[in-house]
């Protein structure tokens, strides 16, 4: 890693170059409606004088030095800038982790290989005469990203990430009450996407049964069993965002509420974030050049960590965690999650269901949010009676207090899964993340 830039004196500055490539083939009711490939290159240049960050986004990499010089003129030189607590914390890593070069690079994978996957799933999963089906779609594609980061402290790192994906989806008109559903599958190369045919067909059959038989839930308070993907959503949306420390820098109320060592949940609850896992939230170095690491946010119900950039870590007197991330080169970084999951337990799914006399099984959710009251928006739910999964339920919303719910988790399954489907939004920026968890049981949640 050699850097070629002249960094201005008496200022901290860094340069983040992002190269990306994406390709997508999509079929809708047998017609190829999407067939594209796009490259994108740009850089974010930042200068800091101890008081204000000055940033500029450019598409033309030849202009980086000019932008750096122009921003330096806006800033006020500061001889002590490297004594600034946030700048002092920044790591000086030098490393190159490029895994997707040559034949592996998405841009070098022939379009025909994606088309073959697409056509295979059309043949294997789509029956145009399937009763009541009004449309179907299959899309296959991939995204590649390479980041290079250089700082005036001497940090110079580069890394890349790539993921191919497949989505199979069906819609049912259902006499003016339309509903659809599908599945996403992931892999490093197009051929990794084979082998999920039966999973999709099972999901289709579940959806059809749900459409035909779902009944309205009686709103109220229920014991809820959350499927792994629902637990993942809860861990990310409902708790994870509260662990992002940029929300609480000088806020006494939040700092008192989330003090390290405080018991915040059942001893069955452990939640972790790690950018160094080969999943959708992979970032071996963050957008300040900090190495990713495993951060346990809750261990056995006790608050043990939170996520930081250099500013939040310096203000709160804690260590860097490698969670400073920007959506792309047009944005400055924020504190963001990466791969966030609730640790699995020892209970089997069957035992958890059998041990539940009266409750609701939240099988699939579409999205969720998390303030003090968190919200999960379910897609498919089932009633549980006398330890058995019964009729499908139409549930619009599951809500609860984050603070109480963490204590109300009383069964944790061994069926841990990590899901690469997510993009997380925060302050207008999206970030690819993964989220995971096992089946869990919560003593009571509000269901409507």
């Amino acid at each position, binding site marked *: 890693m050699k850097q070629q830039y002249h960094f201005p004196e008496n200022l901290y500055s860094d340069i983040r170059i992002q190269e990306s490539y994406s390709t997508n083939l999509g079929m809708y009711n047998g017609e190829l409606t999407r067939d594209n490939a796009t490259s994108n290159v740009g850089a974010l240049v930042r200068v800091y004088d101890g008081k204000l960050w000055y940033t500029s986004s450019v598409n033309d990499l030849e202009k980086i030095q000019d932008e750096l010089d122009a921003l330096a003129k806006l800033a006020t030189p500061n001889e002590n800038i490297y004594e600034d607590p946030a700048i002092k914390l920044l790591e000086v890593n030098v490393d190159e982790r490029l895994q997707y070069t040559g034949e592996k690079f998405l841009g070098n994978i022939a379009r025909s290989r994606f088309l073959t996957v697409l056509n295979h799933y059309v043949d294997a999963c789509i029956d145009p005469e399937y009763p009541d089906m009004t449309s179907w779609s299959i899309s296959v594609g991939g995204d590649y990203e390479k980041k290079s980061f250089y700082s005036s402290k001497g940090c110079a790192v580069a890394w890349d990430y790539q993921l191919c994906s497949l989505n199979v989806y069906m819609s049912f*008109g259902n006499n003016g009450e339309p509903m659809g559903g599908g599945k996403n599958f992931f892999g490093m190369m197009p051929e990794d996407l084979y082998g999920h045919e039966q999973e999709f067909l099972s999901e289709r059959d579940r959806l059809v049964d749900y459409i035909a038989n779902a009944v309205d839930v009686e709103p109220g308070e229920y014991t809820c069993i959350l499927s792994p993907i629902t637990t993942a959503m809860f861990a990310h949306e409902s708790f994870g965002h509260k662990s992002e420390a940029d929300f609480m820098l000088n806020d006494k109320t939040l700092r008192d509420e989330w003090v390290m060592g405080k018991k915040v949940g059942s001893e069955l609850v452990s939640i972790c974030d790690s950018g160094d896992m080969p999943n959708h939230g992979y970032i071996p170095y963050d957008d300040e050049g900090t190495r990713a690491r495993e951060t346990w946010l809750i261990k056995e119900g006790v608050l043990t960590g939170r996520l930081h950039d250099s500013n939040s870590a310096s203000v709160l007197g804690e260590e860097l965690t490698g969670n400073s991330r920007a959506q792309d080169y047009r944005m400055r970084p924020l504190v963001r999650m990466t791969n966030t999951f609730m640790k699995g337990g020892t209970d089997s799914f069957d035992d958890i269901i059998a041990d539940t006399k009266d409750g609701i099984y939240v099988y699939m959710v579409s999205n969720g949010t998390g303030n003090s009251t968190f919200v999960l928006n379910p897609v498919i739910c089932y009633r549980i009676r006398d330890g058995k999964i019964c009729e499908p339920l139409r549930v619009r919303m599951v809500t609860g207090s984050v603070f109480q719910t963490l204590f109300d988790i009383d069964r944790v399954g061994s069926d841990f899964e990590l899901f690469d489907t997510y993009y997380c939004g925060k302050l207008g920026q999206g970030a690819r993340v993964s989220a995971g968890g096992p089946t869990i049981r919560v003593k009571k949640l509000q269901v409507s």
Partner: protein
Amino acid sequence: MAAIKEKHGTHCEVNTMSYEENKPKAFERLNLDESSYRVYEDGKVGIFHCIGTVSDEEGYAKAQADPERARPYPFSPEAGSTRFRDLSETEFSAGELMALAEEYMKYLTDNYPQFTFSGKFTTTRQTDTFTNDLGADYSNSDASVGVGIMFKHKDSKNIMDGDFEFNMRTPDDGTKFREMADLYLGKWDTVAEIPEDVILDMQYYGFAGSLVSELDAEEMSLGNSRLSGKLGEKVFADSFTLEHDATDKESWYTRFWDGEGCVIPGDKLLLIENGVIKTGYSDKRVADKYGVPHTKTAGRNFGDLTYPGGMNVRIRRSDKTIRELLDGRLAVIPIDYTRSQLDQKGDMTIVINSSLLWDGDKVIGRLPEFKVKTNFYDIFGKDFRGVGSDDPATYHDKQMLLHVERV
């Protein structure tokens, strides 16, 4: 047939001054170009999506460089004329932006010390263009100054308690900002009672977006829409009219041409009139495939073929103000809330974590958390109370009154 060349472009310049926890954090600038080069020949179109800049010669060459990816396009590219529109009203320098941000943040911290604020103050200038070999030469320029404030009460355990934002083409003397800040924050510590009969006062973009997705002519034709088979039927309230309006000066960065270069005569398309479904919206592919009217409403897609969409929809305003529409009743201004998705039957639940109660003129106080429910057909049907003729300080924008049921 000779090849026909066509170029879609966007140039965008954005300056942003950000504050975090009451303090200046960053000054950011962004200057980006994006283009789509398209070459039509023999019923196909080659497309090159360029982020950044290249010469036109190189852009068109790249559009033709990969015949395997040439897309079927059995339609005539759109002939056109010359038309330029500039909706911007004023230049606003980076220095002026920083001064405005400082003034507004000072007002907040001086007058509302019990809160912590984050702020984003942005100037955006954008020019969209469309040219082709058939004589079309269009451009639209626009510029705005945007203000967005997030606030958190210092005693609150929430990450944030609420936010407010608005856009202006020409900044005023600060009155709009002060009015809005006072409205959201002035009565925060006064707890009011949730009314038995709940009327929400909201911007309508989210609800209108859900409705618009049901008017996609392809989805309507396939039976995937809640409005399939309902063309010509009265589905919503008499007072409800929805149209795509490319002349709308209350929106920003609207183009008067669609993703295929088509221009609607008069720049408007009536979708729903007095509750009656008039038409779905389409692009050339959907109109041809399903035998529906071509409404010249293709969404712009720089990297691929178009899709139906990309409109600027607005609900026709009532001739009454918000206060007149309320007619003595109180309304709830949701501040922090989450909507469920519409379920199979079109039902929706909304959790309102925090909100204000007001009479259309003054805020009474803040409300505790509560839930309401509504339904797709009722939102613009029996529960639709109208869009006010005025833009009160709640949003400094169009706003809709909606009756909902508590759960």
